[in-house]
């Protein structure tokens, strides 16, 4: 199918909307748009960060997921208590594939689930005592943990427990940070507010802890912010930065530690990958400590090259020279990857629906392989995300915010992309429709996809999925035309 015109795309949106009742149609209409690169401000064409309508199938998560799952969870040497009933933590446990080094259960706790397992009596009589007891038990069983965070699930806010008081008392007894996080699932419209709440908790309880202690700094200290080390992403990023001659003093929060977070205010530059989930703390550090932050993109050689040069521009000539060397070193390797896979992938069309930074950041990587992204959308993006997206997407492509199950399916049926990139909940629907699919949250159990190393894996995975012979075998023999 050739590219659609503006009118065709607009007509498609209208057609999909037709099945909704009047009121729902009006509301959903605002969240769907035809991309127009001339628009400066996304809010003129698309509405985002609004409450999902009851009755539609949204793909969003809750504030607890944003705080525990995304921001706090990967900090490996802290214990994150899922405070409330057992399900929220258990069903999301280790699902994000944040890799880390350490001995699980001894000095690292990333894939473990700690919960206060609320029962009826805790709801009726309050759970503060249980929480205090839990913290004491943790200290006894896992003495090497560096701190505790209390991630509130829905009931905590509803019954009005005073987790702050418990935390303060426990922090004194343990002489370790104990951080209460008010990220109850019902707050906000999506996981996005959870990121914000988590950032604020870090700001209030962690960031200033080492302001007065000595730190041997170098002029080349940077941090990686908003990289969750999914399948090893942050490691791939870190090695490149180190090759440039920079010193990475903290990883937020993939394979990160409490000490790294506390030392972050000593950095010279914060490198921000996932803008959505960690812009809050970056802004705060810029104001309080005067550390500039820079958004970068480590997907695909073109974007990596641009980002590396932009990063180098903050530093002196040695770094700049090193950077050119790094770029020159990897160029032939990347060219080999492109030469190998581009002929197999060229001209293929992709539809994405993810969260955070990926709906716009991965576009460059696909383009490096000669592919085209014809539709994209955010689960929980805000206006500023769409502002940044409009320029990356081609004219007359589809934008969909907080897409519903129905809309996504209909769009895919009509646009007929060669590949869909989204999450686990969408995977099997599209695979059964015979459309190649990659999970773009967890990298489909692969990765890393960031940085130069990641691109080679990314290209291989896309080829492996798209050109897999299984897609032609989906029609059973008795249904095939004779």
């Amino acid at each position, binding site marked *: 199918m050739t590219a659609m015109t503006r009118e065709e795309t607009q007509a498609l949106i209208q057609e999909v909307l037709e099945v909704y009742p009047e009121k729902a149609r009006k509301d959903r209409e605002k969240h769907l748009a035809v991309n127009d690169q001339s628009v*400066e*401000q996304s*809010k003129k064409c698309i509405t985002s960060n609004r409450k999902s309508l009851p009755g539609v199938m949204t793909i969003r998560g809750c504030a607890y997921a944003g705080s525990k799952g995304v921001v706090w969870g990967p900090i490996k040497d802290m214990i994150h208590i899922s405070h409330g009933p057992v399900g929220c933590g258990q069903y999301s446990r280790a699902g994000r594939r944040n890799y880390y080094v350490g001995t699980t259960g001894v000095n690292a706790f990333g894939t473990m689930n700690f919960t206060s397992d609320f029962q009826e009596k805790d709801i009726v009589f309050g759970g503060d005592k249980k929480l205090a007891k839990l913290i004491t038990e943790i200290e006894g069983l896992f003495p090497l943990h560096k701190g505790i965070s209390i991630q509130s699930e829905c009931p905590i806010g509803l019954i009005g427990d005073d987790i702050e008081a418990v935390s303060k008392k426990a922090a004194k007894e343990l002489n370790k940070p104990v951080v209460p996080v008010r990220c109850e699932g019902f707050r906000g419209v999506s996981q996005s507010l959870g990121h*914000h709440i988590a950032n604020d908790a870090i700001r209030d309880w962690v960031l200033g802890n080492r302001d007065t202690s000595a730190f041997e700094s170098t002029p080349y200290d940077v941090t990686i912010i908003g990289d969750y080390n999914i399948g090893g992403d942050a490691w791939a990023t870190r090695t490149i930065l180190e090759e440039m001659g920079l010193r990475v003093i903290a990883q937020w929060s993939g394979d990160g530690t409490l000490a790294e977070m506390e030392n972050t205010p000593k950095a010279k530059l914060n490198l921000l990958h996932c803008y959505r989930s960690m812009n809050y703390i970056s*802004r705060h550090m*810029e*104001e309080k400590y005067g550390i500039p932050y820079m958004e970068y993109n480590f997907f695909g050689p073109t974007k990596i090259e641009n980002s590396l040069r932009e990063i180098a521009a903050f530093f002196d000539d040695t770094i700049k020279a090193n950077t050119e060397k790094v770029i020159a070193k990897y160029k032939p390797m990347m060219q080999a990857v492109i030469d190998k896979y581009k002929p197999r992938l060229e001209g293929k069309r992709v539809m994405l629906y993810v969260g955070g930074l990926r709906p716009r950041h991965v576009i460059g990587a696909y383009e490096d392989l000669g592919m085209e992204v014809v539709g994209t959308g955010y689960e929980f993006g*805000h206006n500023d995300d769409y*502002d940044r997206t409009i320029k990356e997407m081609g004219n007359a492509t589809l934008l969909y915010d907080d897409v519903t199950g129905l809309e996504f399916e209909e769009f895919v049926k009509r646009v007929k992309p060669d590949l869909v990139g989204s999450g686990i909940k969408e995977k099997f629907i599209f695979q059964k429709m015979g459309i190649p699919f990659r999970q773009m949250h967890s990298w489909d159990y692969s990765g890393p996809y960031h940085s130069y190393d990641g691109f080679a894996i990314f290209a291989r995975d896309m080829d492996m999925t798209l050109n897999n012979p299984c897609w032609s075998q989906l029609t059973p023999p008795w249904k095939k035309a004779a």
Partner: protein
Amino acid sequence: MANIMIQRDSKGGYQFYLPKRDLEDGIDSMEFDTPEKWGGEIKLSGGGTYYIEPQPAPARLPFSVRAKRIDAAE
């Protein structure tokens, strides 16, 4: 009254950020913009208007300040 943050954008202009609502926007005009007197009415690219009590310009940006909403865009 709301807490807002004023930042520099990449083009050297001012940028507006309202943490409470996670609202990022460009600033089209600021009533007073001299070192001695800074603030006053600020007009956002998205159409809203806010008011900052005129004060000496901050030594460094970003800068958090209380502002009054005069006219919101939405």
